[in-house]
């Protein structure tokens, strides 16, 4: 598990490259997180396609895990619901394969290492490649422990996307940049995932982003954790390539529980995240 081994810069997929190459300076890349199987298994494909139509540039598809210790209560809730309803790992590859029939939006998988090990590393990456996955985020696998998955990741062209946090050193940021492919995920605050009030995402974020821009030079930078509105997103990602929203989407779906038109209303919320309210 040595960190010393020299590793070439991971190539992003063509789909992922296109997203960042075609970005105009004023627009921010919006990466939306959704837990596979939430609120119901049959909703996930439709939600992904709807997100794309309403402004999402990248989809982060969550692989539910019983003990998501880097996530807050919102994502733990959606994961539990999905697992209770019978989620299995093969559903992930089915969802991506179905989306791929109709869309070329980049999809990165986000989840925890245990179910991946259990599924079988080689099988997991082979299936992911076949289905058309553009990257993998494992918040409980820091660079130190990547030895486990590096080879499979390389041989199946599914780059790993690592996180950096406000307390990461400059050296650490450079290392993460070197090992990541597609983008680097910046955690805006120390803490777990979850929507926060606007003023909690304070000025120190700006200084953090300045450090990021100095140290992360090979990959685009997306910033996340705590973004719940268009205003949050614009302020936090001012100096970054884009932003990630997750818990706020799940909260929005939960708030629309029982509403016959929940999908349309939810997609309107998505549109407003990207473009602001009309």
């Amino acid at each position, binding site marked *: 598990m040595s960190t010393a081994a020299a590793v070439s810069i991971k190539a992003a997929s063509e789909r992922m490259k296109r997203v960042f190459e075609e970005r105009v300076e004023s627009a921010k890349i919006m990466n939306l997180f959704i837990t596979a199987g939430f609120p119901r298994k049959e909703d996930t494909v439709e939600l992904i396609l709807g997100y794309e139509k309403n402004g999402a540039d990248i989809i982060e598809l969550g692989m539910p895990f019983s*003990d998501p*210790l880097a996530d807050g*209560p919102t994502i733990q809730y959606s994961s539990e619901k999905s697992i209770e309803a019978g989620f299995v790992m093969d559903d992930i590859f089915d969802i991506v394969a179905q989306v791929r029939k109709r869309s070329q939006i980049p999809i990165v998988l986000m989840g925890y290492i245990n179910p*991946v090990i*259990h599924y079988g590393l080689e099988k997991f990456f082979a299936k992911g490649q076949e289905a058309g996955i553009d990257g993998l985020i494992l918040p409980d696998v820091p660079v*130190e422990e990547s030895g486990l998955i590096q080879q499979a990741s390389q041989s199946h062209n599914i780059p790993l996307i690592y996180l950096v*946090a406000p*307390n990461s050193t400059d050296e650490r940021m450079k290392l993460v940049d070197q090992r990541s492919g597609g983008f680097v995920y910046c955690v805006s605050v120390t803490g777990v995932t979850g929507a926060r009030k606007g003023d909690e995402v304070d000025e120190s974020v700006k200084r953090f982003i300045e450090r990021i821009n100095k140290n992360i030079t090979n990959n685009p930078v997306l910033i996340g954790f705590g973004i719940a509105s268009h205003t949050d997103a614009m302020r936090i990602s001012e100096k970054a390539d884009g932003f990630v929203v997750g818990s706020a989407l799940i909260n929005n779906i939960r708030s629309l529980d029982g509403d016959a038109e929940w999908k349309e209303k939810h997609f309107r919320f998505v549109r407003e995240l990207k473009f602001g309210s009309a």
Partner: protein
Amino acid sequence: MSTLEKSPETDNLTYNFPNSSGYFGKFGGKFVPEILIPALDELEREYKVAKDDEQFKKERLHHLREYVGRPTPLTLTERLTEHYGTGKIYFKREDLCHTGAHKINNTIGQVLLAMRMGKKRIIAETGAGQHGVATATVCAKFGLECIVYMGEEDMRRQKLNVDRMRLLGADVRSVTSGSRTLKDATNEAIRDWVTNVDDTFYIIGSVVGPHPYPMMVRDFHDVIGLETEAQCLEIEGRDPDYILACVGGGSNAIGIFHRFIDKKHVKLIGLEAAGEGAETNKTAATFSKGQPGVLHGSLSYLLQTHQGQIALAHSISAGLDYPGVGPEHSHLFDTKRVDYRPVTDTEAMDAVKRCSMLEGIIPAIETAHAIAWLETLMPTLTKDDIVVINCSGRGDKDMGTISEYFYGTNGQS
């Protein structure tokens, strides 16, 4: 030199796990969010310095002697020995430590380290409440803020310990996520740490979690094995033939085993909680039923579903009710240095009664899992064999469960 003053680093063990990356063979590591990497690096650095610092060692030993009450005796259990009529059975009396279990050896060590690092806010997870009480105790003693995460279900089962912690000034926070037991309390403690990483020290209660915790917690419990070795030599003139200890996360077991790992003539047996049976789904027998996986920061054997979700553990003993086990135990299991065997709820409860009636010692239900193994082991021994059981805790905290089990009433209600 008294047994207390003998420290592990002066001994020449050829067994020297973990390696510098925190691996015990294939097991261990630091599978944690990026935010915790700087904190773990800092902890590792500080611990390395403190470990060899004379002042730190002196202070730790002082508190172990004057506050915890070490060294604990190695007691010959005369009637239990007579009952089986084969080998001689000794108890290493960790039940006589202040707060009633071995757990405080570790919390003394970690809290001194926390103060050395300038951390004023202490967090901990607890299952049965013993580690929570041991943490709340040292925080009261040294005047530190203490927050203990405990599953809602465990708070109900261990009300007495909840009140003990409160009385000691700790803020006991109920965890309502997941199965509402120890694993969920651990998730919550890690989340707190991720959020308050700058000023907070996380006192982990067993030899689990990311490196350097499994190593550090082991080192703080190493005193159990060192004392046992010296005491057995003094009383019997030689090493024991067998050492038995119960294993949940595995801190008391590693504490008494570690010193003897290189001594191949000493047979080490770890007893895990089989619950209603190691072949059933209501079990906490990690080695009998689990597979390697990652939980709470390290790679180790783990009870899991066919989809790699963490399975719910079951044991009548709240302290063993955990789906994982410390990574060093996984290594000792794979290399066959320690023999791990399952013991059921029923066998453990029978041992609680037997030990109480024959020795006047009411053991913790956790500890009773080790005592229960005498039923299997003793008939195979000869009169000269020496058996040491780590009597890791006393059973006062379990009186609710014990009353309900034997007398049909819950002593707490």
